[in-house]
């Protein structure tokens, strides 16, 4: 295991004092399992200097959170064992009593978590002043004044009024701001941020990252920033530590790591990150060039069965009859309340959405949470009832009185879900999971079903010997492959993938995306690909539709939308996506706080008619001046 790499002259100049604030040497953490003490961290060593930001990056199970919890000593002492030397400003933390470390926690080093950890039954003001009074011994009125100052520091508008709010009354981004304010209450010298932006939308994530950077400058803190997202790393970190399965693989200045990764795993990780803008100048989707994480060598591309001009899926002919036609789709959910269960409003989840997908084409729906993209997908699959509009699948009517029977529609369109841990019945063997759609819809012998299932598993890169196993015996990526195999069992023409790769780790995500493209090429499938991740969408799509608050605000060929984004919201989304390029580290972005707009309308609301303007061939933009985030409205 390597010790922390010596600082480059440039980075050393930025972090002048040589005396590290936090020094971790040979940290080994073990958990008690039925098999005895199992190490989950092995001999991890790194330093954090004053005013420095260290990013600890790794995929799930790499031990990055356990590192933070070991430093804060927040692990259960009965089932975990911490060995090694942890020094905070020269004091050995490992030798400290429980009371001693409690004095440090919050006061000298603070932590924020992925899900803003606020108690739902107390107001924000109560929770903030409680810390100030307990830890800093302020009087009630001083604490209130200080709490307001803290909320202003994290740029919460109307801080004085917000003290009386309960956590549920705030949006996710606002709650994370309050959590940061609480962490800063005692002016800590080290802030540990454990995936603080993972649960947030990209535009909110950009704001929170900006805020942390700004506060670090103001408060002269050191930050240990834990994340799985290399884009975030590039934006925040002076130095980066890469972890893999409990080992610290590589540490160094962020620019060094990105420019000249030394370890195979780091190379593999960097190769699998989708980079926004990397596809400029190309029209067609392109698979990732993957790198083996053990050898660092590029993974050989699949041997081509027959000579083909390009590995990428060919361009679908746009003049062919569309496979899926969605016209004027609207979905509303009634909200009822009051004594007589009256209609108090409606959630206009999807409002007048129209698009087409050609055979063999991938259309991506992008947008942030609440934009209606998943609701649209579910409506196409028949999981939601629509209020208006028509859906046609090839020559079949999918909605209305003369709709085709579900059984026939099911065979032509299938869906892949977001969570590979929830979408497979845990009590079914893989063989039965794959066989179920065939047993229901096709009249096949058990032998034939078994042969087809084996073929499906091979198609998604798994071995047919795995058929007798249960889902819990597979990793997330393997399970998502199984889910894909099952979706292909009835040989559908359209596959709807609802955030199908969002829950996967980066290196696995790239593989699954490559697999989906390969399947598309082989079977001439169409995809409706739902995602919030602009960089992934750029890789896989032929065409892209951006959704905001229930409407499509921009739709067109991928190249056209990404190279000349024409709607202000599209431009904001692209600007907010973190880019894995350390050169952008000193870029400062706006900090303005958005009022989150909701699609809840009064019962008598009449939506404005949709007007689309053509800005390029097949590239349309919504012309509705007030259908924008408030900050973008002029």
């Amino acid at each position, binding site marked *: 295991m390597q010790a922390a790499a010596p600082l480059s002259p440039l980075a050393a100049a930025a972090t002048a004092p040589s005396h590290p604030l936090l020094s971790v040497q040979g940290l080994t953490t073990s958990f008690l399992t039925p098999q005895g003490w199992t190490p989950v961290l092995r001999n991890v060593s790194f330093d954090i200097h004053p005013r420095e930001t260290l990013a600890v990056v790794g995929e799930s199970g790499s031990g990055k959170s356990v590192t933070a919890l070991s430093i804060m000593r927040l692990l259960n002492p009965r089932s975990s064992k911490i060995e090694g030397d942890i020094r905070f400003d020269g004091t050995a933390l490992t030798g400290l009593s429980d009371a001693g470390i409690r004095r440090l926690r919050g006061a000298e080093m603070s932590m924020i978590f992925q899900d803003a950890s606020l108690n739902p039954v107390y107001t924000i003001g109560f929770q903030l002043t409680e810390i100030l009074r307990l830890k800093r011994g302020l009087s009630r009125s001083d604490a209130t004044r200080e709490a307001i100052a803290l909320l202003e520091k994290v740029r919460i508008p109307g801080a004085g009024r917000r003290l009386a709010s309960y956590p549920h009354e705030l949006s996710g981004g606002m709650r994370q701001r309050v959590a940061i304010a609480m962490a800063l209450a005692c002016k800590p010298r080290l802030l540990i941020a454990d995936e603080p932006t993972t649960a947030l939308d990209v535009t909110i994530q950009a704001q929170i990252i900006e805020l942390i950077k700004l506060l670090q400058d103001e408060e002269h803190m050191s930050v240990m920033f834990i994340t799985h997202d290399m884009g975030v790393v590039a934006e925040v970190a002076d130095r980066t530590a890469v972890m893999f399965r409990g080992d610290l693989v590589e540490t160094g200045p962020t620019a060094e790591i990105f420019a000249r990764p030394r370890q195979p795993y780091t190379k593999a990780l960097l190769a699998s990150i989708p980079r926004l803008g990397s596809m400029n100048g190309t029209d067609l989707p392109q698979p990732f060039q993957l790198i083996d994480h053990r050898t660092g060598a590029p*993974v050989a591309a699949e041997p081509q069965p027959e000579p083909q001009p390009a590995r990428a899926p060919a361009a679908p002919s746009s003049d062919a009859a569309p496979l899926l036609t969605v016209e004027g789709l609207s979905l509303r959910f009634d909200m009822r309340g009051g004594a007589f269960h009256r209609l108090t409003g409606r959630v206009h989840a999807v409002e007048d959405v129209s698009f087409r997908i050609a055979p063999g084409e991938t259309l991506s729906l992008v947008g942030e949470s609440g934009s209606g993209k998943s609701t649209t997908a579910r409506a196409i699959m028949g999981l939601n009832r629509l209020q208006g509009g028509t859906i046609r699948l090839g020559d079949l009517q999918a909605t209305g009185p003369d709709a085709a029977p*579900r059984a026939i529609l*099911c065979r032509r369109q299938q869906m892949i879900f977001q969570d590979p841990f*929830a*979408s497979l019945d*845990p009590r079914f063997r893989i063989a039965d999971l794959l066989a179920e759609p065939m047993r229901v819809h096709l009249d096949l012998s058990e032998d034939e079903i078994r042969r087809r299932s084996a073929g499906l598993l091979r198609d998604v890169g798994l071995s047919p010997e795995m058929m007798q196993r249960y889902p819990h015996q597979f*990793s997330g990526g*393997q399970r998502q492959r199984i889910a894909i195999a099952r979706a292909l069992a009835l040989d559908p023409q359209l596959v709807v993938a609802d955030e199908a790769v969002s829950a996967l780790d980066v290196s696995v995500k790239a*593989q699954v995306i490559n*697999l989906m493209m390969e399947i598309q090429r082989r079977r001439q499938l169409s995809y409706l690909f739902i995602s919030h991740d602009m960089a992934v969408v750029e890789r896989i799509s032929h065409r892209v539709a951006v959704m905001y608050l229930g409407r499509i605000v921009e739709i067109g060929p991928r190249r056209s939308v990404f190279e000349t984004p024409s709607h202000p919201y599209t431009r904001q989304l692209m600007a907010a996506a973190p880019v894995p390029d350390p050169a952008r580290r000193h870029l400062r972005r706006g900090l303005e706080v958005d009022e989150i707009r909701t699609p809840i309308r009064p019962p008598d609301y009449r939506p404005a008619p949709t007007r689309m303007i053509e800005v390029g061939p097949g590239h349309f933009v919504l012309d509705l001046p007030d259908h924008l985030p408030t900050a973008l409205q002029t």
Partner: protein
Amino acid sequence: MPSDIVDPFARDPEATARPLRDFARSYLRSPSGAVGLVLLVLIVLAALCAPLLSFQNPYDLLQLDIMDGQLPPGASSMAAGYTYLLGTDDQGRDMYSAILYGLRISLGVGVISATTAAVIGATLGLIAAYRGGRVEAAIMRLVDFQLSFPTILIALMILAVLGKGIGNVILALVLVEWATFARTARGVGLVESRKEYIEASHVMGVPTWRILLQHLLPNCIPPLIVIATVQVARAISLEATLSFLGVGVPITQPSLGLLISNGYQYMFSGMYWMSVFPGLSLLVTIVAINLVGDRLRDVLNPRKDS
């Protein structure tokens, strides 16, 4: 076949599933759970093999000798020539044999009523969870109505109308207990039916009955097993209470509760054994079942998984 598999998280292909063995191993990690299980197995075996383990059939009046009445534990029989380990009751019935036979009735009534109630309750609860709307409202209001009455009161009312008898006791117990199962099944079913694998089955066009029986029900079983275990213990004690009050099983087929009741009148004459030994057996049985139930709850609760 794609050759680009460099998944760093891929699981060991040699790993095999032994759900039963894993389950047994984690169950036995708790000493109290293990003790409960051993006791319960012994009790069930004793009840099943009662005719082999006992000296007389306590229900066969011809085998009883009135001359042996009210003998203390350890006394020997006048005529038959065996020792009454736990004494005899006023009619010369061997308490040891009577307890073994009583255990059969108590356990039988408990298990039959709890499983019947589980089937009825779970079915209604899952239908409520899956269908929602009016069906759910109707079923759950019935459950609320049922649970708002004290159980003993309902059982007393039913038996007062129908009269004594093992069948009637079982019926009363089922009517009292189904609501608990329905409520639990609905709770679990609501959680499970919102999961993506149920939605995935919809999308694949799997028929509703198949989703209910093959996907929803098996995933709701673990908490129901826990409830069922505890409910068996509850049914046994409720049956004992009813029999003690004289509205339960008939005098010709005494359960543990009826034995306690019969011996109770001799309690203050110093003949403690007629009611204390059946009482102790009842206590041990219920404690054993509850220990097993508690352990099952811990093991089957996914959140307590290591």
